[in-house]
């Protein structure tokens, strides 16, 4: 490396380091606070030097399990998220394939409808949806937290964009061999669409994992309460203990982080592909 290049590289590292530091500070605060005894959590929180725990204990983590059924919340969130993701991957990809590759009357108009529906966030329809699920008698169950979210306009659109971009030769070859659309989809298209499946899976999982407003409205039993609601209620449960809240937070984020770390390459590739084509 030439001298000029070395200076440039150092500048890059410096800038990145500073940014990374800023990014990590809240995370480190949460992590270290979760290991501190309660009377030290906030007092030291402002002092940069004390960002790292002087006394290290698992007490807060144990306390979380004592005060709330964290394991149950965790199971609930995992179960609900996985159901939504699994159901969504199937249902939304099938629909997107029909839009992308099949010919049928009304296709283009329905596609426009799907695109318009993408805009509507949950908060805008929460109350009427609440009345709906109440009429159906779904309150305080897992299903009420799963079924309304399986079909997703944004997922359909992501799949659709990706399928459009797939080279047609593979499908053509299969059709010549006599395969019907079902087989083409499951045997050929889907296996070649791993990046978009990964993207949709992860985005959908993240959304469900952090769902707060809807479970608040439709559940009350701890047996079906998911993590974010558990966390919000934990925040209002006297006595207020920041150490416990941090421990709760760390435990809530870790599974998702692990998933991200494991599937990073696919995800980055998948996200990038859709972004570029959008």
């Amino acid at each position, binding site marked *: 490396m030439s001298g000029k290049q070395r200076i440039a590289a150092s500048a890059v590292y410096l800038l990145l380091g500073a940014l990374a530091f800023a990014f990590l500070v809240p995370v480190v605060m949460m992590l270290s606070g979760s290991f501190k005894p309660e009377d030290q959590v906030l007092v030291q929180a402002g002092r940069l030097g004390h960002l790292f725990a002087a006394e290290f204990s698992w007490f807060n983590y144990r306390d979380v399990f004592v005060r709330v059924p964290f394991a149950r919340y965790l199971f609930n969130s995992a179960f609900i998220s996985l159901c939504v993701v699994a159901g969504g991957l199937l249902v939304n990809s099938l629909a997107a394939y029909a839009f992308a590759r099949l010919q049928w009357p009304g296709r283009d108009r329905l596609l426009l409808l799907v695109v318009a529906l993408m805009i509507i966030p949950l908060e805008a329809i929460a109350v009427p949806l609440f009345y709906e699920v*109440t009429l159906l008698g779904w309150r305080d169950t897992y299903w009420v937290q799963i079924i309304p979210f399986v079909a997703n306009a944004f997922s359909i659109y992501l799949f659709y964009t990706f399928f459009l971009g797939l080279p047609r030769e593979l499908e053509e070859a299969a059709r010549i061999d006599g395969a019907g659309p079902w087989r083409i989809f499951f045997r050929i298209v889907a296996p070649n669409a791993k990046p978009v499946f990964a993207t949709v899976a992860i985005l959908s999982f993240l959304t469900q994992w952090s769902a707060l407003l809807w479970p608040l409205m439709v559940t009350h039993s701890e047996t079906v309460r998911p993590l974010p609601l558990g966390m919000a209620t934990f925040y*209002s449960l*006297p006595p207020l203990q920041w150490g416990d809240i941090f421990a709760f937070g760390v435990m809530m984020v870790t599974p998702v982080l692990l998933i991200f770390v494991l599937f990073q390459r696919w995800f980055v590739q998948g996200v990038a592909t859709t972004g570029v084509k959008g």
Partner: protein
Amino acid sequence: MLHVWAHAGQEAERRVLQAQLERFNQQSGETQLKLTFIPERDYNAQVQAAALAGDLPDLLEFDGPYLYNYIWQQHLIPLEDLLPRALLNDLLPSIVAQGSYAGHLYSVGVYDSGLGLYARQSALQQIGARIPASAGDAWSIDEFNQILGKLAARDSDQAVLDIKLNYTGEWYTYGFSPLLQSAGADLIERRSYRVSVGTINNAAAVSAMQQLQSWIQQGYVDPNLDDAAFTGGRVAMSWVGHWEYERYRNAHKADLLVLPLPDFGQGSRTGQGSWNWGISRGSRHPQVAAQFIEFLMRTDEVLAMCDANGAVPGIKSAVQQSTLYGGQGPLALFAAQLTHGVSVPRPKTPAYPVITTEFQNAFQQIRNGGDVQQALNAAAQKIDQDILDNQGYPFIEQ
């Protein structure tokens, strides 16, 4: 199976209620009770959602004056025929007042609340402040301001008062509407409960809230993010209710004083009302539900709960026997405030949810330095509009 909902309060409270339920289940035999704790912050939202969906539990608690909106929505049944006369006669008048609406008793509270100023005696003695002996003897607002000033002069960060700014929600109406009442104003006029303009935003109200705002702006109030301003000794006084008594006593032992709130002109006023039990209209076992209420209202059960949460017992026999509230007990002030009319109930109207939301909004604006008159005007307007929209909340008897 009978479903019971209770708010998730302090740990000790929850343990006592859980134990009470289990003991009742053991004696009762056929119909068993199942208890669900609902987090306090979302309690009203969840009850409202259940009410809309038509699946309220058989027996549930209500947070003070939120009760009236549910009565108005026809969700509760009267209790006077389900409970023994002896119990009804033993209830504190404030409990009866709280649970009655349109001629019937719809709820019963195991305990009532107490609100006051906790203080460290040593800190007050250091500055030579007078210690009020009763609510009639409370500091005037001028005295209070002087005391704040003197305390602040000796305090390194100038913050000498805690008013629980870290709390959210109903606390602000409960804790600070007495300020309005002490100044001669109120949240709404109490004759017809229809008009808030002229009551919540009159000159007395504005000047009272300006006093509060001045304390915050002068730096006398600790933000209390860690909820340890008073227990940690950072402040000399804490404006809060009975639920902090045990924590505060553990922190300061004999140095702890319980004082009335300052007098803003019309006499010291304080809050009342707390969680109360009601039976929903859809319940198939109202008798069993009533039996459980009766069980909870037995003197020793009431005392057990009040020992756990420090609240004022809801029946006279328990007050007399209580070490905290009876006679010369440390919290006798709270009991006295309830029986001698120093405490003012929050407005008994189905419009209460809107009244409290708007007052809370106004409080947040005032606390952040906003114009007091404007904030209170906005609240008054919204409240009156809501009452108009609901045609004055007419009660349709079923």
